[in-house]
C-alpha cells in the first residue's frame, strides 16, 4: 500500500520527470537522425577525403564515453566562454553520440543493397544522386529499421546520464533522487521511476517489432 501512496503523493513530479525524459529523447533523436544521415552520406559517397571525415567522426563518437562528452559539451564549453544551456548541451551531446551509431547502421543498410542494383540503375541512365534516392535509399531504410529501433532504446537509457550529471535537466532519474531525498522511501520511489523507464523502452521495443513486420523485406 505504501507503494501506491508514494506514487499518488508524488505523481506530478514523476509525470514532469517522465515528460522531461521524453523531451530529451525526442530532441536527441532528431539530432542523431539528422547528423547520422549526413555522416552516413559522407561515408558512402565516392570522395576519399570526405569518407575519411565520416570515419573519424564515427570512431571518435562511438568510442568516447557519453559522460566525457557531457563534461566537454557543458562545463568544458562554458569554461571556454561559450554560454551553452544545460538542455542544449545534454541533447547535443547525446544526439552527436548516437549519430555515430545511426551513421554506422545506415551505412551498412546502404551496403546491404547489392552493388549490382547500383550498377544496373547507373547503366540505365540514372545519375548518382538519383540512384541513391530512387533505388538505394528506399531499400536501405527498410533494412535499418530494426537496428535503428535498438539504437533508440539505447538512447532512452543513455538519456538518464544527462539527468545524473547536468543539474538543470530534471528527468525521471533526477526527480526520483529528489523525491527520495525528501521521503527516504528509496525502494518505492525507484520502483516507480523504473516503471517510467520501462514504459519508454518497452513501448519502443513493441513499436519496432510492429514496424519490422510491416516494412522489412526479407532477403
Amino acid at each position, binding site marked *: 500500500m505504501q507503494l501506491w501512496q508514494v506514487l499518488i503523493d508524488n505523481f506530478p513530479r514523476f509525470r514532469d520527470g517522465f515528460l522531461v525524459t521524453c523531451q530529451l529523447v525526442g530532441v536527441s533523436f532528431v539530432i542523431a537522425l539528422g547528423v547520422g544521415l549526413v555522416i552516413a552520406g559522407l561515408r558512402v559517397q565516392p570522395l576519399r577525403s570526405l569518407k575519411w571525415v565520416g570515419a573519424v567522426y564515427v*570512431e*571518435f563518437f*562511438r*568510442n*568516447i*564515453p*557519453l*559522460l*566525457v*562528452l557531457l*563534461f*566537454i559539451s557543458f*562545463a*568544458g*564549453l562554458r*569554461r*571556454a*566562454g561559450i554560454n551553452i544551456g544545460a538542455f542544449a548541451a545534454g541533447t547535443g551531446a547525446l544526439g552527436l553520440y548516437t549519430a555515430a*551509431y545511426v551513421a554506422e*547502421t545506415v551505412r551498412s543498410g546502404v551496403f546491404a543493397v547489392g552493388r549490382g542494383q547500383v550498377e544496373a540503375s547507373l547503366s540505365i541512365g540514372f545519375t548518382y544522386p538519383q540512384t541513391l534516392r530512387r533505388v538505394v535509399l528506399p531499400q536501405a531504410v527498410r533494412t535499418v529499421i*530494426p*537496428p535503428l529501433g*535498438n*539504437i533508440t*532504446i*539505447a538512447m*532512452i*537509457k*543513455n*538519456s*538518464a*546520464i544527462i539527468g*545524473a*550529471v547536468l543539474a538543470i535537466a530534471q528527468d525521471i*532519474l533526477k526527480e526520483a*533522487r529528489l523525491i*527520495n531525498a525528501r521521503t527516504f522511501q*528509496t*525502494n518505492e520511489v*525507484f520502483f516507480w*521511476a*523504473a516503471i517510467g*523507464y*520501462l514504459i519508454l*523502452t*518497452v513501448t519502443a*521495443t513493441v513499436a519496432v517489432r510492429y514496424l519490422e513486420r510491416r516494412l522489412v523485406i526479407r532477403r
Partner: protein
Amino acid sequence: MGYLIDPANWEWLTAGNNLRFILTGFLINIQIAVLAMILSLIFGLVLALLRISKKPWVRAPALAWIDSFRNLPLIFIILYLALSIPQSWRDAYGDHVPAWFSEAFKSPFFLAAVTGLTLYNSAVIAEIMRAGIVSLEKGQGEAAAALGLPPSKAMRLIILPQGLRRMVPATVSQLITLNKDTTLVSIIGIQEVMRQARIVTNTSGSPFTGSGVDAPLLHVFLVVGLMFVIVNLLLSRLSTRLEIREQQRTGIRVKVTGLEDQVSADAQAV
C-alpha cells in the same frame, strides 16, 4: 577553434604529474571493466542457461529478470544500489577490504558500483550468449541426442562450446561499452579517471598544489576521451579480427552484435 589549438592551453599536459595522474585513474577504469566483465560472464552464463531452459517456471523468471535489467539505464541501477545498500554492509566491506587495494576499490560504494555494472552487463551478456546458442543449427543437438548423450552432457560438450565460440566477438565489443560505462561510477564518488581529471583541472593552475599551469576543462576531458577512444578502437579491431577468423574456420557467418547493449543475432552460411 583558436582556443582549442592554442599551445598555451596544452602546456598542462607535460607540466607536473598531470598526465600520470590521469593515466592512473584510467587504469582504475580498465580494472573495474575487467572485474565487472569476469563477473558478468559468470552470471550471464547462468542466466542464459536458465533462459533457454525447457521448463517454463525456470524460463519465465529468467526472462523477466534479463529484460528488466537490460531495459533500465545503468546509471539508474548504480544510483539505486548506492542509495539502498545498507550502511552496515558498506562498513563491513570497508573493514575487510585489503589495505593494498587502490583508493577506488576501497570506497564504501565500490560494492554498489560493481554490483550495478554486473547486474546490467550480465543481463546483456546472457542475451548475447542465448543468441549464440540459439543460432546453432538444430542438427547439432539432435545428433548429440541420437548418439545417446543425455541433454546435460549434450549442452556441456556439444552446444555450449560451439554456441559460446560464436559470441566471443560480440563479447569483446560489449567490453567496449562496459569500458565506457565505467566512467559512470564516478557519479557515486569512486575515484577513477573522471574524478582524477577533475582534480587536475582544479589544482593544476595553482602554484601551491599543482604545476602552476592552467588546465582547461575542455582540453583535459578531450584527453580523457581520447584515451578511451584509443583503447576501444584496439578492442573493436580485435573483435572484427575474431569475427573473420571464426567465419573462416566454420564457414558460417554469424553476426551477433551487441550494438550499444542491444543484441541481435543472425547466422548464415557463406
